[in-house]
């Protein structure tokens, strides 16, 4: 079950790089202050067990529609040069393991998009917000249905037109209830994902 997402990811990345080498035309996105991004990403959640106390092997597909806005013109030096973006994201996870359950959250997110090579722009992003899941109570790590989700990750945006980009990346998710109920070990997950963005 865990191999198929990796195989899909490798295939997508291979297609991406083959496409880049085949494209001769220069496409440079023109993102300025106030430019907005609507994005839809999907991935597959994989367990990351950081301690021996973490025993749950949670997994399942995740969908993440998001909106962000460019806050700054390109700033910074050399390879760090990029643009700050602020937005929000809805994250929906269907836990298929250990039980078929669901989780949904709303997270403000902040993103730093490097200038990269123009059409190929790496980025890092951080997000955090409330997360509700009915998985809690069925696993030893979580007891409350109301939780918080913290996300940190990075990715690569490939602009195939000045307004559309294809994105791949990897995120780390931490879900816990911030000590409001015990036990509160927290669920940690890795999430390889892919998706599309539209800029306007």
């Amino acid at each position: 079950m865990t191999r198929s997402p990796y195989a899909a990811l490798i295939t997508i990345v291979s297609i991406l790089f083959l496409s880049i080498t085949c494209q001769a035309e220069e496409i440079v996105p023109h993102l300025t202050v106030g430019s907005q991004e609507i994005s839809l990403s999907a991935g597959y959640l994989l367990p990351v067990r950081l301690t021996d106390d973490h025993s749950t092997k949670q997994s399942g597909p995740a969908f993440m529609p998001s909106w962000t806005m460019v806050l700054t013109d390109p700033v910074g030096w050399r390879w760090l040069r990029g643009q700050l973006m602020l937005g929000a994201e809805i994250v929906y996870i269907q836990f298929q393991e250990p039980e078929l359950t669901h989780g949904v959250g709303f997270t403000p997110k902040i993103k730093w998009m490097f200038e990269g090579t123009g059409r190929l722009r790496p980025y890092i992003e951080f997000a955090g917000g409330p997360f509700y899941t009915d998985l809690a109570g069925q696993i030893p790590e979580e007891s409350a249905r109301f939780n918080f989700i913290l996300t940190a990750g990075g990715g690569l945006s490939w602009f195939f037109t000045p307004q559309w980009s294809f994105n791949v990346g990897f995120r780390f998710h931490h879900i816990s209830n911030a000590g409001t109920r015990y036990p509160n070990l927290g669920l940690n997950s890795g999430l390889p994902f892919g998706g599309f963005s539209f800029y306007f």
Partner: protein
Amino acid sequence: MNPTSSLRCLALACCGVILITIGGCSHWIEMTSPPADTNEQASQVIARDEQVPLILDRIHTSRNGSPQNPSSESEQRILSSLADIGLFSHLASANAAAEAVGKTVRAKLRVDEAIDPHAGGAALKGIVIGASMYILTPFLPLEYDYSAHLTLELERWDGEIKRYESQAAGTARYHLFGATPIMIDELKGHVTETCLTELARQIVKDTTFFSASSAPLFEPGIRTVSVKSRASSTTSSAAPAITVVAPARMAP
């Protein structure tokens, strides 16, 4: 909780969301250099046969000190602004105009833009706004500063040069949800318009200087131009730029 109080809470929450959304969508532009007093504008009269054509030789644009390529859009805007004065018989850019014959005024424009997007402040406020789940959006406006300094050199057919300068600055203040690229274009448009209006006001004062009868046309002689390399303003630029400086008439 009874249904009535639940309904009240829901209504209050809806009102709060609507207020935050409306408050967080606004943007406005503040001009820090107000337009020149229109009372000062003195109109002049020029006979049609006294009008001479103007050729826009060159536009040199820089942004925060770094040279930029001038756009044809900005060139058109400058030409139409000069055309609005009514001082010149017709206007053209050097690329479009054929070799000028007779009395013509040649123009060179330098546009120095300065942009300050307040990136650090925007980042800090952005983090605070995000952390507050966007509740603080209406209370933390963001800023974008733009200023322009225009220098216009008009060279009469006899080599006499008049130099005009104008500058203006403005700030776009906006809440997060009100930010659009159009807003920045609006700010730049207002600042540029203020500069061009001020330039036009100054040129109108010199109407007699540019009238056809103000100076005789020199007989065709050998005219020279100086060709020299320009001192680079940046240390990394190795290739010397070639510039053609103001034409000078050689004594017969």
